């Protein structure tokens, strides 16, 4: 079938199962927006290209399917670099199509030209500059394959205008459906080595104080059920990193919650005291380990990861298994059953009672506001958690509100937590929530945002309002860049430098209304519940609820950067407790 490159691009995307595309047109990508009209793919017109990228990420987080964004050349391409880097750090499958100046003009500093593949080389799993229309079907097929297999990640496809422009003879091509990949350097492996899995099972059967240290690889591999089986077979307690919140139910008796810099005391300390860490799809990130040399000093390490470069990158494992988390866990469960299953596990009552002692002495805690004081953000989040369905999808920005959400929410379902972990991208919440809602229209989607974050990407609420994505935003307005304020309080002798944002400017309620949302403002504890209930009832419009919160509230526990996890700073009210 004869067609032009633009038609081929649309057909190729349809063939990959793309149902929604987040984008914004412009000069170089213009010819592709014409065949888009005839395509089955829904296009969501964003207000800034960064929004398109984060929406694609949110969609991928919530559905497991690759998110797709399409923008033009030059400034549009540079605007989407942040989401690409975000997706690269958090292993999010995403395909981004960018327009490029005509092939013959590349390198001439043409209008809206930039070296997109050069700029994005270090923030993509792979990228392509397509030079011939005939290459489009194969490149798109390969791009989705690379983005979704092995360790998932973003792939960018840069397309010069001439090969998609029907008025240019270079766009003429014959359609073909690629049936294979010509990628001699890319052979992702899923299965783990059987002998190593047996060794891992043996270590598990010998461990007296084991901890399952579970990361984003659990969710990426659709491995939550397998993890539950492994945990229940062995009785081993589970910590869920920021990237695996929801990958193991918070209400499960073995769940210790989030470890790391703002993890809860029990999760942090259990890892510190463990004699075996079973790291599943986790990468020993500095926010989890604290000072690496003093992290889990007594523990042997079993490390399972799809990316062999993670094995030994930070901490030398005793057993390193390259493979897909779900596949390896299933094999591990088999091996453990062959060794006697739960019968073969040593008596760990002492370990369990130490853990429950920590849980009793050091629960998450905060002091409720009194009298005229403003709201406590933790209280707001508890109320929100308790008055929304348990499968609500929560997207968050980056900072204090993100940590409080991860701490106080009860994640009992996989794919309900959407956040920017590795890159820590402020402004992630709103566009990511829109993407999640696009992927899961059946679910209630709340974005929990800070006032600093909100001001970075609030314009995408226009997209939500006009494209019909009734997301809800809980805006934790504490008038500060709160996390930075907390660091200045704790580590810079309360010398506050450029962190005050003001309480009343902008007027968030009016701004929300101007953006096409319902705007609500909440200032006292008794208004919190009714406002959330009101927001939950609104399904034809996005809602922004501004919660006016205490500025001085700090996130605890906290392991100060560069310190050992053994020196975790607990809430002031718990500092006299024996450790």
């Amino acid at each position, binding site marked *: 079938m004869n067609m032009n490159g633009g038609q081929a691009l649309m057909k190729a995307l349809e063939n990959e199962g793309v149902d929604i595309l987040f984008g914004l047109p412009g000069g170089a990508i213009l010819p592709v927006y014409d065949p888009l009209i005839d395509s089955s793919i829904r296009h969501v017109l964003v207000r800034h290209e960064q929004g398109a990228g984060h929406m694609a990420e949110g969609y991928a987080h919530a559905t497991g399917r690759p998110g797709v964004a399409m923008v033009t050349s030059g400034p549009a391409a540079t605007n989407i670099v942040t989401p690409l880097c975000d997706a690269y750090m958090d292993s999010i499958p995403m395909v981004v199509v960018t327009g490029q100046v005509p092939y013959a003009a590349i390198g001439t500093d043409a209008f809206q030209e930039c070296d997109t*593949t*050069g700029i994005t*080389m*270090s923030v993509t*799993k*792979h990228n392509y*500059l397509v030079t011939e229309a005939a290459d489009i079907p194969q490149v798109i097929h390969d791009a989705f394959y*690379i983005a979704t297999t092995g360790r998932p990640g973003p792939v960018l496809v840069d397309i010069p205008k001439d090969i998609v422009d029907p008025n240019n003879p270079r766009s003429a091509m014959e359609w073909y459906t690629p049936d294979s990949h010509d*990628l*001699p*350097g*890319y052979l992702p492996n899923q299965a783990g080595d059987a002998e190593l899995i047996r060794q891992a099972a043996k270590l598990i059967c010998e461990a007296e104080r084991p901890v399952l240290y579970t990361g984003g690889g659990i969710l990426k591999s659709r491995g939550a059920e397998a993890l539950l089986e492994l945990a229940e077979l062995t009785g081993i307690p589970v910590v869920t990193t920021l990237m695996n919140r929801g990958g193991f139910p918070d209400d499960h008796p073995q769940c210790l919650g989030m470890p790391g810099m703002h993890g809860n005391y029990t999760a942090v300390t259990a890892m510190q005291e463990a004699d075996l860490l079973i790291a599943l799809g986790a990468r020993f990130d500095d926010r989890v380990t604290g000072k690496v040399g003093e992290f889990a000093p007594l523990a042997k390490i079993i490390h399972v990861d799809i*990316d*062999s*470069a993670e094995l*030994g*990158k930070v901490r030398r494992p005793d057993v390193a298994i390259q493979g897909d988390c779900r596949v390896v866990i299933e094999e591990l469960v088999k091996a453990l059953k062959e060794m006697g299953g739960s019968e073969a596990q040593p008596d760990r009552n002492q370990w369990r009672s130490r853990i429950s002692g920590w849980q009793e002495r050091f629960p998450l805690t905060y002091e409720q506001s009194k009298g005229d004081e403003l709201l406590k953000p933790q209280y707001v989040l508890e109320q929100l958690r308790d008055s929304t369905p348990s499968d609500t999808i929560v997207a968050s920005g980056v900072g204090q509100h993100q940590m409080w959400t991860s701490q106080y929410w009860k994640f009992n379902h996989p794919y309900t937590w959407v956040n920017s972990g590795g890159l820590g991208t402020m402004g992630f919440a709103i566009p990511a929530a829109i993407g999640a809602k696009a992927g899961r229209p059946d679910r209630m989607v709340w974005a929990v945002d800070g006032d600093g974050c909100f001001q970075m990407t609030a314009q995408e609420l226009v997209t939500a309002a006009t494209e019909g994505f009734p997301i809800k935003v809980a805006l934790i307005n504490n008038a500060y860049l709160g996390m930075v304020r907390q660091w200045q309080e704790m580590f810079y002798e309360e010398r506050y430098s450029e962190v005050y944002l003001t309480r009343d400017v902008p007027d968030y309620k009016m701004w929300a209304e101007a953006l096409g949302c319902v705007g609500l403002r909440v200032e006292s504890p008794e208004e919190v519940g009714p406002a959330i209930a009101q927001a939950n009832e609104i399904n034809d419009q996005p809602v922004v609820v501004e919660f006016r919160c205490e500025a001085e509230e700090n996130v605890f526990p906290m392991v100060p950067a560069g310190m050992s996890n053994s020196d975790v700073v607990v809430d002031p009210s718990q500092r006299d407790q024996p450790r």
Partner: protein
Amino acid sequence: MTAADDGGTTTLVVRVENKAGVLARVAGLFARRGFNIESLAVAPTDDERFSRLTIVVGVDAAPMEQVVKQLDKLVNVVDIQELNPSASVERELMMVTVRAEPEIRGQILDLVRIFQATVLNVGYDEIMVSLTGSPSRVDDFEGLLRPYGIVDVQRTGKVALPKLVKAAPDPLAP
């Protein structure tokens, strides 16, 4: 596992797809992961789909295992051989122009003969020669020419292939 020679370097022979931008991907990876390249040689292979990069990496710069694993993650990298100097044959080409007034030209030609180097071009008071050899032999030659006054020198960086198996197969083996 790490193959370090006396110079504290390791040689990686990397087969890559012969596609635009591949060298930039490899060089960019070294730069952003903080690995240091001592020398780099690029050449086509007998299969036109692939090129071969010979990269000499300072072993102090980074754990070699990380260098290799990160390189291997590049989609265009097909395979990587880590060459231990004692198990490989290494060669480098040097072209050098050296001061050679007519009265001392003979001394230079003596060195050329001893090292089995090649005279490429002769001027009134300069001479251009080339030498192919192991990197240490090329170092020696360059060192001996230095006192005469090196005007210009170009070295390719080394290329390497693994040494071949010496023992014949056991005729009784199945």
